[in-house]
């Protein structure tokens, strides 16, 4: 994705962008999608951790919140949080007309 950005800028579709890239690419992330990739990788790792058995055992003890088993509530919330965060990364898609 980064490459596309560079080439489209280099082809002169976006001359200002090209200058911007050349001047500041060392200082700030090249593009949003590059950032997104790092976030997604981190999120996958966190998601895997959240559902490993040692972590689940923390919540798997005998206990209830709002009349529901703590484990059930934890899994539902963690699950929804992951879905929400992934959605947030792709919230611009599909583009609205």
């Amino acid at each position: 994705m980064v490459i596309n950005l560079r080439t489209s800028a280099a082809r002169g579709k976006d001359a200002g962008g090209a200058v911007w890239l050349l001047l500041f690419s060392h200082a700030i992330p090249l593009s949003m999608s590059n950032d997104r990739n790092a976030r997604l990788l981190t999120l996958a790792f966190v998601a895997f951790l959240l559902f490993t058995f040692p972590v689940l055992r923390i919540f798997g003890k005998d206990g209830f919140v709002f009349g529901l088993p703590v484990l059930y509530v934890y899994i539902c919330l963690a699950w929804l949080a992951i879905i929400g965060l992934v959605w947030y990364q792709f919230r611009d898609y599909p583009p609205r007309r």
Partner: protein
Amino acid sequence: MSSSLIIAAAIAYIGLLFLIAYWTDRRSKRGISTVNNPYIYALSLAVYCTAWTFFGSVGKAAAAGIHFLPIYLGPTVSAVLWWFVLYKMILVSKAQRITSIADFISSRYGKSTLLGVIATLLAIASIVPYISIQLKAIAVSYDILTHEGVQAWSGEGLLAIPFYQDTAWYIAIALAIFAIIFGTRNLDPNERHEGLVVAVAFESVFKLIVFLLVGIFVCYGLFNGFGDLFAQAQAVPEIAATLFFDQETVDGWYWFWLMLLSMFAILLLPRQFHVAVVENTNPEFVKTATWLFPLYLFLINIFVLPIAVSGSLLQGTAANADMFVLSLPLLADQPFLSLLVALGGFSASTGMVIVAVTALAIMISNHLFMPALIQYAPTSARQTEDITDRLLGIRRVSIVIIMLLTYGYFKFVSASYGLVSIGLISFAGVAQFAPALLGGLFWKRATRKGAVWGLSVGAIVWGFCLPLPTLVEAGFFPISIIEEGLFGQAWLRPYTLFGMEGMDRLSHGAFWSLSLNTLTYVLVSINTIPSPLEAYQANVFVNIYDYLEDDSSHEVIRRTARFEDVFHVLRRFIGIEKTEEIVQSFTSRALRQLPPGTEVGEDFISVAERNLAGAIGAASAKIIINNIVQEEPISIEEMLRILDQTREIVAYSKVVEAKSQELEATTQQLRTANEQLQELDELKADFITTITHELRTPITSIKSLANILAENTDLPAADKEKYLAIIVSESARIARLVDQVLDWEKLQHALPTNNATRVAIRPLLETAAASIKPIMQERQIDFAVQLPTNSLHGHGQRDQLLQAILNLLSNASKFCASPNGQVQLAAKAVGREIEISVTDNGFGLSPHEMDNVFEKFTQFSDREHGKPPGTGLGLAITQTIVKQHGGRILVESSKGKGATFLIYLPLSQD
């Protein structure tokens, strides 16, 4: 409930699916694509949720609490990575026209026929048990509905029933027919089945709604909401134990392996690969599926635990928990809801079976039948018989064979197992694809031999540890294999392979098969060398992003073939219509206009091969195309060199381009400098000529006059004096000339601010005018002076400024008209500058002359006026002086109308 009602409902439901598929195909024929929609795509992925989900999850939850969940949490975790993995798989598959997971693996490793065969056999062995549990789910739910009973339904009595009285037999036949109708109606070169995908998406919505309805009914119809349900469950210790996750109730490693296997299964199950990759119309849809599909999983699981708990509470923990979803509404006397549930389960099963069987049929026909057909019935390119009908026939036969296998497995094996435990055997089986597929996507060094060995070892270990014991228990093999080990070897026992004990059967089998598979794959890969085609394919798969923009620059294989040969092959395998489409998209010329024997090159052959691969798989397409092409042999070293170099060359050529531009610029500068030097050289030569000429004239006259004086001692005194005066003046002229040259040289090295003082302009100009006046008078020039009345001051060296002005005045006196010459000297303050102007009425300057007038050694001559007097240094000296005083000098003139030289000097501030 009467069986006719149930069958009628099922037929009506299937009819609805056909209508949807028919409507979709009608639309796509008119050019409207229904599947070109990210939401349809995400929903079609939910074919993952089968009868296992619909019935089996509740059964598992009733027995072992949240152990049913890893199957859905795993895909949720791996879906986060789809943007990296699935997206790339889709790009590769579009570029290579991949038709199945076996085709994907075969293509990656040099379009290997052997790998296609291994992968297909493994897929069949893995998926047949999986389909058999769908058969079981439908059959059991039908029997429960018709008998209106919930008595335990066991497999023991099943073997006694002849197959023609068995519900499952007729269900198998019906499913085979659906699959044939949905999956093999036509042979699409891209293996796209839009109708099938939309029907599957519809089924996904339907089963979700039904499951949510049952959940709401159980929680709020049979109990007073979640709180009430869980409060009652807490009171029964047996049930309460399933709600928690502790050392005793949950085996941590079992949980881990379930997560891992399902992370793989979501993309590696043949049907998942089919809907996610082969049927995908736009890779960007992954962006939606990556969150929408986990959301679907979340919704369909939210009521599993409540339903399981309420089933255990109402029917006891010993009941057939797999059927709670159906038996709960039935017991509560909700016939309509029960029928909906049966249809929901039916839809979950049929969707899975149709897609899975279609995907398997594609693999069997492309990777088992096709290579055999080509191998043993060599088809010459000359044969014109159309083979597309035969291909469809092969697929239909494949479907029937798969359903027969499925029924057999169901009848003898899966009847005595739970839905989930059979399903997990399948998961572990398809997980064997993971090293070869993921490694092939990201690791360029992986070789065909590595994949063959890894996949074979994984498949054998998996088969030995997981499905084999189920066959042993069904009586196909002696029980001694389990108890004493294969061939009586104790270390070859399927549940404790190599003596590894203390693990459950699934974790044990998954651990050994996956680790040995991966290890073999890596070890063999790094110790073997890929063939040229393998290396090329590896590069396409791993670096697919480089190939997206322009693939022609990456072509390294050069092949030629006769056009008719390619044309006949295409016509045989994909039909005349599609062939003509391809040819016409490629060449604007009509087919008949191509002269016989026309040679076609790599570009056309690769298009033909890709289209052929879309119909019969890459390996078979390769064999067929190889029969008709001439290929320039290419060595592996050369191939690797080319592949490694392509990108380096691109990078390098960019550097070279930049360098050569730089060089060009430098060359240009040098050329300009050289021209200037040459010009200067010419000027210098001219100057020397001028100077010597100027010097020679007075020297000649001095010499001749001195000769006269020397030879004629008796000359009259008046003549003598006259001659001597001329000699003196001529000598002065020489001295002047030499002084001017020395002045010029001095100016070049002088520091501008040396001895700088305040200079009053008016006295300066008066001095200049007084000095030049005699010459003006001598030449009868009308000399006018207009000096400023107020006192103006400049800054600098008075003598130099005086010289500059005198030079201008002297020039004016030389170049003004003759006779009636006019010269004017004027000065005034302009802004913060002093303007000193010298105007003459001579023949003026042309624009070209104005450009060069201040260049040193410049003298203008023309035919009319001859060579002008002077050294060519005066104006150059003047300009240098003015510049060194921080001022500027301009000339205003037009040819024939005189010239005005203007000096601007900064005013001195007091």
